[in-house]
């Protein structure tokens, strides 16, 4: 009598395994994070020259940081599925008896992790290079809270758009074209939340309404991505 086959791994275990793979790949040959970090610092320099401003504060500071992070994130999204597509990782995953949305969750978590590392480099750089008001505790706390919400939005939408674009022939073009308009509500919210945070006279309170809007955006797109991701992986 043969033994019963082992039960399929739980989704959480699958997500964990995939996430570890992503992080290990990036740690072994760092490509995405250094590129995003360098790009963000170059962008800050470009902003200095194009705005002709030594320091920025308030709404302008919020805009500079938001744009810098957004465009650096797009670089990360472009690379997110490339390795799987080129090396056949999709096929291997599809053969496994696991829930396919695990890949969505794992990729989104990985992208989120990359964004956090990016921000650990870019935000201090921004504060040193361009920010007028000094870095205070409240400012830091509020920035962290805002960027946490923004990162969820970028991670979810970025993963969805990356998966959509990987099968097309013009994937590097499609990603920014679709992701930028799609992310706009989150961008608006992030800028509106950072503007009082970077106010010259000291960080002001975060407008609750914008926290709610970005939170709602994260929720809606999180659920939506979860629902449709399966269809992107069928062959």
């Amino acid at each position: 009598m043969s033994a019963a086959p082992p039960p399929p791994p739980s989704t959480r275990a699958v997500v964990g395994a995939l996430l570890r793979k992503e992080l290990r790949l990036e740690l072994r040959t760092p490509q995405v994070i250094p590129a995003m970090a360098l790009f963000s610092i170059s962008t800050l320099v470009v902003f200095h020259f194009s705005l002709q401003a030594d320091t920025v504060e308030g709404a302008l500071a919020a805009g500079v940081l938001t744009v810098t992070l957004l465009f650096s994130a797009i670089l990360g999204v472009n690379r997110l599925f490339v390795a799987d597509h080129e090396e056949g990782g999709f096929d291997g995953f599809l053969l496994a008896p696991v829930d396919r949305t695990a890949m969505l969750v794992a990729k989104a978590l990985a992208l989120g992790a990359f964004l956090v590392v990016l921000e650990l480099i870019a935000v201090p750089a921004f504060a040193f290079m361009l920010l007028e008001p000094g870095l205070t505790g409240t400012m830091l706390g509020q920035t962290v809270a805002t960027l946490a919400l923004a990162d969820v939005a970028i991670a979810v939408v970025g993963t969805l758009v990356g998966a959509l674009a990987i099968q097309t022939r013009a994937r590097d073009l499609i990603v920014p074209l679709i992701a930028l308009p799609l992310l706009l509500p989150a961008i608006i919210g992030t800028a509106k939340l950072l503007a009082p945070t970077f106010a010259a006279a000291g960080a002001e309170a975060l407008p609750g309404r914008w926290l709610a809007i970005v939170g709602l955006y994260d929720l809606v797109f999180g659920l939506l991505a979860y629902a449709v991701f399966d269809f992107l992986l069928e062959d």
Partner: protein
Amino acid sequence: MSGTRLRALSVATVVTLITGYALAAFVAPMDADQGFIQKIFYLHVPMAIVALCGFIFAGLCAIAHLRTDDAKWDLRAYVAIHISIILGVGVLLTGAIWAKASWGHYWVWDEPTLVSFLIIFLLYATYTPLRFSIEDRDKQARYASVFAITAGAFVPLNFLAVRAATSLVHPRTLSSADNLPGAMRTAFLVCLLGMTLLYVLLWQYEIAHKTTVAQLRALKRRLAGDEGLRPRRSAAPELQVR
């Protein structure tokens, strides 16, 4: 839709549109603040409402397509988005004209409807290039449906965000369809109905055309084999006809 019903729909559309715009021109009173310029409102706002509903309708068709895997729903979503984009161009152009007449600039950031529309237009403009860049038909249809659903969910969120972001300095004249006095309201509703009928009519025409072309290609294939067909790469969904 059969020929007779299509004809009836056409007649109904023409009659409703003409009635609506006649009401707007001759019966509805002159607006106190904006004067004659306000008459653009009877054209611009119905176009905007119908275009947005069209985008959401396309999202619903896309959901049906993913659930039933029937190419008919993909075609319906494609045509719906197509016509909504055309109406969207109309919204942006008429909005710019109105803005120039009211405030002297062709573009104003203060009108949340116009700004939202620009963003939505930028998003949906990528629909056709996306379809065109995926060669496998099934995959193209599936990915397009995922896009249509995502973008459809995006539309209300976008409006919410842009509306919340726009300063309340200038009164929102274009979007205030609520407090309309009697005659204005009637004219507006008739124009809205007319625009809706127009959308449905154009949608039916395009679907009829595409279905016919698919049937003709199938006939050609039966008669002349595959060499008879002109090879074509297109972004439009291809219907399989027996």
